């Protein structure tokens, strides 16, 4: 699994940080940043965060 984030789309709702804090963070401006690619045990959290992001700023590439 690979994650990409589109910081232009991010509206700073923080769903990603709440649901997958090991993978996502918000920078000084409140915009999403990727901390790390998800390990095997974090794939479910990454998918959840991707599904909840209200601005579809997170893309989960499976495989």
């Amino acid at each position: 699994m690979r994650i990409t984030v589109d910081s232009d789309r991010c509206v700073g709702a923080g769903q990603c940080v709440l649901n997958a804090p090991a993978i996502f963070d918000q920078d000084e401006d409140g915009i999403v940043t990727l901390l790390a690619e998800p390990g095997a045990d974090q794939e479910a959290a990454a998918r959840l965060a991707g599904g909840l992001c209200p601005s579809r700023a997170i893309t989960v590439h499976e495989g």
Partner: protein
Amino acid sequence: MTHTEPATQATCPVTGATAAATDTDPLVVDFPLRAPGIPFPPPEYADYRDRKGLVLSHLPDGKRVWLVTRHEDVRAVLTNPGISSNPEHAGFPNVGETIGVPKQSQVPGWFVGMDSPEHDRFRKALIPEFTVRRVRAMKPAIERTVDAQLDAMLAAGNTADLVADFTLPIPSLVISALLGVPPADREFFESRTRVLVSFRAFSDEERSAAAKDLLRYINRLIDIKQKWGGDDIVTRLLATGAIGAHEMSGVLMLLLIAGHETTANNIALGIVTLLKNPQWIGDERAVEETLRFHSVADLVSLRVAVEDVEIAGQRIKAGEGIVPLVAAANYDENLFACPHAFDPSRSARGHVAFGYGVHQCLGQNLVRVEMEVAYRKLFERIPNLRLDLPDDGLNIKYDGVLYGLHELPVRW
């Protein structure tokens, strides 16, 4: 799920017939519905979700408005670029206005009523103030605010109205601290915001006078921050220059109003639900579930189509109003099994109580902290808290666009 496929492909499971288009004969219903109870979503919502397409209604002023009830359709509406939040468009469903709530006049800086990209400048300027990290750092201050309310209640006797004494003051005090309102003025600030949301206790004139007082106060606050600064949102926004001087008061009023009664109502209803389900008292997961379960902002995310769009196979013409009913979406069995059960152990995360898309609530992480602290402190400090209801039961508030309680009498 069949209803998101193009309508021409929807096949009846019984007859095998293929349903043709879409903009013929939708169910027409009265709206807004009046079914106050706990939990709030009226039983009709379940019927609407089960139907193909959308449900049509007319506001008292005759405007056509489409009601959207399934979770995925609500999300589709709230992310569709052909659908607008701008109340200036003809056809915008001013639900509040038609049920007696005075129109929120288009103030500069009122960005919840703007579309991208105009909206995004405001949103981007504000999100650093509301990050998960930022609001978690506010927790000790929020705890002190909540404790002070409880101190006052406990000192005053063994009964209280939790709406007046607890749930309304907390969000107002929290937001006034964020805005840098000096402690000496917070009571004034709180008393004015309280008038603003009390449709029953105060007349229209009194409420509009309170709104003017607040606006005047906010303008003075901006002047003060311009001169002296402080560790607050207003000072930092002024420093970035991203928001113009003429827009600042609108932005601050929005923060104040959007986060006041919403939070108060949700906490009040959450307390009632926890008293009825005491096994969940002290469980942090109750926060998310009370947001889903009560969905107080059912009539808040109002929209209008600005192009012809299609939702759930239903064509919506440019200029027609759309009401995504978040309470209906939050009871969609496809996502939340047995939705009428209050069950914090479920994963309530996907709820749309805060809306969805670029307008999804800016204050949501602040609310989560406020709710967690309010529930925890209340039941910790008053473990023998119980309802003290008059014979006619809870006084449910449903005269604005928000669902809540007029009073919440308790004793201990």
